[in-house]
């Protein structure tokens, strides 16, 4: 790990194919900045992504990375981290990837509290399939497959995380570059599962949850005198659901990552050339 890593070192030479103005540019820049600021470099970093616009991120960043199947990025990240706890693992996904097809994994990843970060680029729509309702779309949001709107309440990802025992819950806005990078950096630094829901507007298919909408409605928790260590206060803010908060909503400073509690501290790639020296003991157990 070198100390002179710049965030641009995490940039690949591939030009993003995101639409001009897409929120994902800002989200990714914040991720790269946070990784560099926390002293990581591309060779000790593993980025996992699922499917969708968000899934392309591994191509545009430079690090060890895997672009997997829809909704399953979190288990891949957990496997990477457990097999080599020395690696910095960051998982990126979209709202469909994380809260629809991957909702089950999200709940269990939160419960497991492995030391990694999870950034969800929430644009409240399916972009890559050209504009269908996502799990965070508004109830009356009209799309090609839901002409009357989904007619059910959107998933509240922060509440889902809280209910599952999250030790770090934050929300950010990709367009506020400074705050966004700061928030992700806190998630990376957190000892445990650092979850950040990032508003990352889709300029092509979502004309409701736009930059303007978020700029007008977002409330920075830093200006609200909110104590992120107060779980009750966090619960209230999350369940009220009437404001678009930005900042760290909840953080448990006593969090101990699962792998630490399980005593996993070795790089599992290091194995002997043959069976372990005492392997015949495994056989003798069957006497």
């Amino acid at each position, binding site marked *: 790990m070198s100390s002179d890593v710049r965030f641009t070192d995490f940039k690949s030479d591939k030009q993003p194919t995101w639409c001009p103005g897409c929120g994902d540019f800002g989200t990714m820049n914040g991720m790269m900045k946070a990784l560099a600021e926390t002293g990581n470099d591309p*060779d000790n970093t*593993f980025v996992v992504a699922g499917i969708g616009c968000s899934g392309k991120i591994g191509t545009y960043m430079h690090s*060890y990375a895997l672009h*997997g199947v829809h909704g399953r990025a*979190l288990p891949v990240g957990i496997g990477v981290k*457990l097999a080599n706890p020395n690696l910095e693992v960051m998982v990126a996904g979209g709202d469909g990837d994380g809260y629809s097809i991957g909702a089950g994994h999200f709940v269990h990843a939160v419960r497991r509290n492995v030391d990694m970060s999870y950034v969800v680029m929430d644009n409240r729509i399916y972009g890559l399939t050209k504009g269908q309702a996502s799990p965070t779309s508004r109830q009356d949001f009209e799309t090609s497959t839901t002409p009357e709107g989904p007619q059910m309440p959107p998933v509240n990802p922060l509440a889902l995380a809280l209910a599952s025992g999250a030790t770090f819950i934050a929300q950010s806005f990709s367009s506020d570059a400074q705050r966004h990078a700061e928030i992700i950096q806190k998630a990376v630094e957190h000892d445990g599962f650092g979850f950040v829901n990032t508003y990352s507007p889709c300029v092509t298919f979502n004309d409701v949850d736009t930059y303007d909408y978020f700029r007008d409605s977002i409330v920075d928790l830093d200006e609200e005198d909110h104590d992120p260590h107060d779980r009750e206060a966090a619960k209230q803010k999350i369940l009220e659901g009437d404001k678009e908060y930005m900042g760290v909503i909840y953080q448990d400073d006593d969090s101990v990552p699962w792998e630490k509690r399980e005593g996993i501290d070795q790089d599992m790639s290091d194995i*002997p050339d043959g069976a372990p020296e005492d392997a015949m003991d495994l056989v003798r157990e069957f006497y």
Partner: protein
Amino acid sequence: MPEDLNWAIGGEAGDGIDSTGKIFAQALSRAGRHVFTSKDFASRIRGGYTAYKVRTSVDRVESVVDRLDILIALTERTIDENMDELHEGSVIIYDGERSTMQDVEVPDGMIGLSVPLQRLAEDAGGAIMANVVALGAACEVAQFPIENLDESLNKRFGDKGEAIVENNKEAARLGQQHVQEEYDHDFDYDIETTDEDYVLLNGDEAIGMGAIAAGCRFYSGYPITPATDVMEYMTGRVEQYGGKVVQAEDELSAINMALGAARAGARAMTATSGPGIDLMTETFGLVATTETPLVICDVMRSGPSTGMPTKQEQGDLNMTLYGGHGEIPRFVVAPTSVSECFWKTVEAFNYAEKYQTPVYLVSDLALAVTEQTFPPEVFDMDEVEIDRGKVVDEDEVDSWLDERGRFQAHFPSADGVSPRAFPGTTDGAHMTTGLEHDELGRRTEEEAVRLEQVEKRQRKVETAKEQEEWDYREFGDSEADTLVISWGSNEGAMREALGFLEERGHDVRFISVPYIFPRPDLSAEIEAADDVIVVECNATGQFADVIEHDVLERVQRVNKYNGVRFKADELATEIENTLTGADAGATEVEAE
């Protein structure tokens, strides 16, 4: 035929059938006798008929037979369930004092020993030991020295304290005494013991042990019958070597975690049964196209759907061979015996890493629940070799960078296998994706690159076909006109069947095949035989189909896989080239 004794204990699930059977099987094994066990069980926790059967002999035993010599019947139904296997002179031990067993009628010609199991158990310290009283009685019938049970009882009850162990030993002796005092039959059984030292284990345990020996350090799985024993065996043991077993939230998570661990450089495995393989199939394609080494174990049971979870079948062969959309290079290895479950697992890890492909390790319920004795040297750990393939470290990584310093994790090398840099390797950072990708692992739809990568992945299979020995095991008369071929757990029964067939005047050559893909070329063997019979535990003959396919004269093929449909003029040229044997360009005529 070996001089064998067939023993069983049967009752309701929850009656302690398994542990009682295991105590007896271990005692026999420790006394230098060969043992082969089998279980009849239902998919429920309590109630329902269940039995644990032990076949034992001084000679090796490879299968179950339709004969029961001694039966401990804890319920009346146990006798009914086993009527077909009982014979004249069979001994049935039961507790005639139990209200539910008072009306038991021992069939004509059989010997019923009513032993007050519960009462004697209470005398020894608790009714819960009734099964052990029965074991003691059975030892007397078989003339098996009861001291042999003591070590098994220590092992089973040792952590509950000395008093419990002593009470159990007493219970066994009360059962023995009761038979000595109350019955003066000559039971005809006189079990010999030997000085041989055997270990007793089942196929799932052998797979778990093989995995640990082969350096597997990460296992993620979701419980499912009959694969769970693999996970239970590894739990607590792999941790001693710095590894971890994770019970995932579902099979999708299990295989994705294992994929992540494998990308991080760990030897990783998941095990499941058919329904779990269904769920894992999407990620299986990702594993293959990202060229990640992974061992996926399928312990087959009866399907389709939930089928019969506690019954045997070899119905998943087609799925492991062909499952998944698109075309996926893979290996399919199927152990044919409990000891081969160990060795084929070791091989599976080496194939996975040498060729950077997923490997299906296909076992079945019969192997999973069969415990069998082996001389411990069958699992000689010094013989375990670990080949990690083309892993490059920081010193070697330079030679695999492109002109811009980027690591080529999918470099289309001549043998189809690319360099592998574990995360953390300086200058090795690279991505990979389930999308078609270039040599850097980055998404592409460029026709030439697509062709290059498809061919590169397929080339690994061709390389493996050349480099490895895809052999088979042969038994019986190698000159015989009748050839029997089987795969998986049928080997043991078939080996014994050879003896029966010989007695009836049939000479048979028997080939047991542990490799499904790649597999040995059996054309010459098939040509040389008059009759060829493929034995397998399924309805349609899935292995018979592939064997038959192998000996067919091949059709010529015109294939296109660059992502563009056939065009008429191009097609005309391709077909013409094929007919005239001219260089076929993009056409691939499968070589053989």
